[in-house]
């Protein structure tokens, strides 16, 4: 377990970050081996699984995540879609993906017109600074998306498990 107070550790970490590679430690206290990361290619294929050949338009979707999160282990996230919720014109589902966690899927939410408002809040884990993508599927078959960049800092004073 490396200490966050260790200046050597810090500088190595920051150099790694500057080089655009993945940071060397995880905030999860038990991890001794860093898992393989989801890659942008995995993200792209997860999105293709959802949308097929359809064109994904930017807009309508709003993804609220604090731009600089206090702890990557628990990050509040709200997705909302600016679209009516009537029986014949509504948001069917919302899908959230991330770029660099070990797996690209975060959550899928399935809505009905009775929701009244297409908005969902949850808390997610982000292993590193990365992009998060939300895609909404409307009842007319169209897809809309929003992408945000999230900067994840690591907690200080982490510990071994008691």
């Amino acid at each position: 377990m490396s200490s966050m107070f260790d200046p050597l550790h810090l500088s190595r970490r920051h150099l790694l970050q500057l080089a655009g590679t993945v940071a060397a430690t995880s905030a999860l206290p038990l991890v001794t081996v860093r898992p393989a990361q989801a890659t942008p290619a995995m993200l792209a294929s997860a999105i293709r699984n959802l949308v097929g050949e359809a064109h994904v338009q930017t807009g309508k979707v709003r993804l609220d995540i604090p731009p600089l999160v206090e702890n990557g282990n628990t990050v509040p996230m709200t997705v909302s879609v600016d679209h009516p919720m009537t029986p014949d014109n509504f948001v069917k589902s919302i899908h959230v993906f991330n770029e660099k966690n070990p797996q690209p899927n975060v959550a899928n939410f399935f809505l009905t017109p009775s929701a009244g408002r297409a908005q969902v809040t949850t808390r997610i884990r982000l292993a590193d600074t990365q992009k998060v993508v939300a895609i909404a599927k409307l009842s007319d078959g169209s897809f809309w998306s929003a992408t945000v960049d999230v900067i994840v800092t690591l907690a200080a004073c982490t510990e071994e498990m008691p």
Partner: protein
Amino acid sequence: MPRALLAVMVLLGAALPVLAGEIAVSARRSGYDFLSSDTKAMQDDDTANPAMLSVLDGETLWSTKAGAANKSCGDCHGAADASMKGVAARYPAFNAASGAPVDLGQRVNLCRRQHQQADPFAPESRELLALTAVIAKQSRGMPITAGDDPRLASAVARGRELFVQRQGQLNLACANCHDDNWDKHLAGSAITQAQPTGYPIYRLEWQGMGSLQRRLRGCMTGVRAQALDFDAPDMISLELYLMSRAHGMTMDAPAVRP
């Protein structure tokens, strides 16, 4: 994050400032004040604060009969919201039997042993955190008074000694960070003043509940010192000193911290 690096350099530099001394009463700030607005919102809303799951759990335990005495906490103490009001704000408190301070978790375990005739709960066990969370919640908004008892003076003094004593491979005292550099950051985290107003807490890093002792052990490991054992007399003295240092500040347990 050049800022974090800078903070570390400042902290570790050869020319470490001599202890500037205690934080002025008017300058004291709870860990809550350092939270982002999202984390504040998480703590403020009881239907969103994950620590409330532990409180819920504790309410069940409070009314569950246990031990050879086959009594629940509630059988003797009645409703926690009346009988436990303000209790957490004055712990650690003097225990006449041992002639030493006991913290809230130890007090609960005294009742387990003596009054329920049951095995004590392990430190950081789900049950102990849940019961202390229920009790601590009853002190929300109340001023901290722990340490007022004159019989505790020597333990408070011992706690202060530990707080200002350099330790670990990094040779840092708690006070180097929490009295002298509380307004700075370390690798993205606010250092804060180490005010114990919210314990037990739900820590985002842990994704779960933990006691003040667990939090302190994290800081000890952080400076690469041998962490004090759970419930060690020095650990209780340190908790007591932190509470007396926060005298008059309002409790916000069960809090959320990064």
